[in-house]
């Protein structure tokens, strides 16, 4: 699920649950998630085999 898809789903769910105050907060969380996913230490299944699996 992309972050944009997740955010749309989460916002719709918050609205449905009667928690519209959550919407701007979810947008902040989405930014943090974007940062987390963009970090250079993330692995990709089509890139080098991960090392350090024994940690």
């Amino acid at each position, binding site marked *: *699920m992309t972050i944009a898809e*997740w955010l749309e789903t*989460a916002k719709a*769910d*918050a609205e449905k649950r009667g*928690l519209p*105050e*959550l919407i701007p*907060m*979810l947008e902040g*969380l989405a930014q*943090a*998630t974007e*940062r*987390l*996913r963009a*970090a250079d*230490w*993330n692995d990709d299944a089509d890139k080098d085999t991960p090392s350090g699996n024994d*940690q």
Partner: protein
Amino acid sequence: VATISELAPQVAAGRIKSEKLTEECLGKIEELNPKLNAFITITAEEALAQARHADQEIAGGRRIGPLHGIPISLKDLIDQKGVRTTAGSLVRKDHVATADAVVTRQLREAGAVFVGKTNLHEFAFGTTSEDSGFGPTRNPHDPTRSPGGSSGGSAVSVATGMALGTVGTDTGGSIRIPAAACGVVGLKPEWGHVSASGVVPLSRQLDHVGPLAASVADAWLLYNAMQPDSQRISSTLEAMSLKGMRLGKLSGYLFDRLDAEVERGVLSTIDRLQERGAKVVEVSLPHANDMAAIYLHLVFGDAAEYHARTLISRPQDYTTPVRLRLEMARYVLAEDYIRALRGKALIAAEVDRALEGVDALVLPALAVPAPPLGAATMPVKGGPDAVRTLMLRCSQPFNLSGHPAIALPCGVTRDNLPIGLQLVGHKGRTTALVQAALAAESVLAELS
């Protein structure tokens, strides 16, 4: 404020009565608590009974331990048998603990007298202690400001002499932040070195239990008493020599967004330590910019799990800001939680690397002075930023990494608000960290 290190030998020798010390603390609570709201539950009768019992034991020649007859407080998410543990929330307002937490038991066995349970940010899920089911705690240096959090009531209790020492918890800085904001010492031990059994969790993998006290020596004395018998070292420690002490000053992220007076205070302290013989080198944490995102996903995932049932069954019993943040936490995806777990391991390795060749890392404990209650942002170098982000910025790396860290006062701002210095030590070497902090404290005492 009197220290445990000065008073405990006097109590042990029978020259000062525990009952008198306890009455003094209870008197301060009676005088100051209506204004500062540091305590949720005051256990006056039990404390006085404990104190009288301690005096009888001492008169009879029986010595229990290093805290014999010393009045202390407990953050109200730590169980004390027969007393309610509210965690600062109406969700738990009637929950009475059926047993002591392990840390409470250790301190009881060391002779401590418990004067009460201190206020906190609800469920430790915040850094200002203003969102509590029992009302906000106020900073004794300026009651219009936050005492920091989440162990705000604990820090206030020590800063004002309502207790001689206290126990807090630290998930992203909740011992060190209020210690810095209130001008006391806060020791976050290495992760797992003080038991969290019987303590309401926020994030079990980031929660640390530890002391706040009026001096570094007192923090050590309390920390040592929190250990199982087999792991206690000594109630007192010698300061490390400043000559030859090696300090790693963290550059970049951890000094980027500071209040100007905090930055001046910390840098001038580092200069003083250097003048007295410490060698200071610049070190860095290459992925420091990712830390806030890593921390957020971990603490949200863990908090969402713990609160899942009561968010549905008793939503009205949470304060609105904490309830909303917990609701938001429920949207974290498993894949992002796992990413954050990998990031946590990376940060721990980077802190280890930064510590190579130095005795301790040095940085501010808190990027800003105590914020005004209700403030959403504060001015810092580079423009205003969110209070919550700023409060966590300097402390959360070492919750992710699990390294021991200590906050100690290093001066005040023009408005007389405390500034905190932070030292971070090697894993397995908490003793050396505290010895370095004793040395820094002695230099700061000469300056003041």
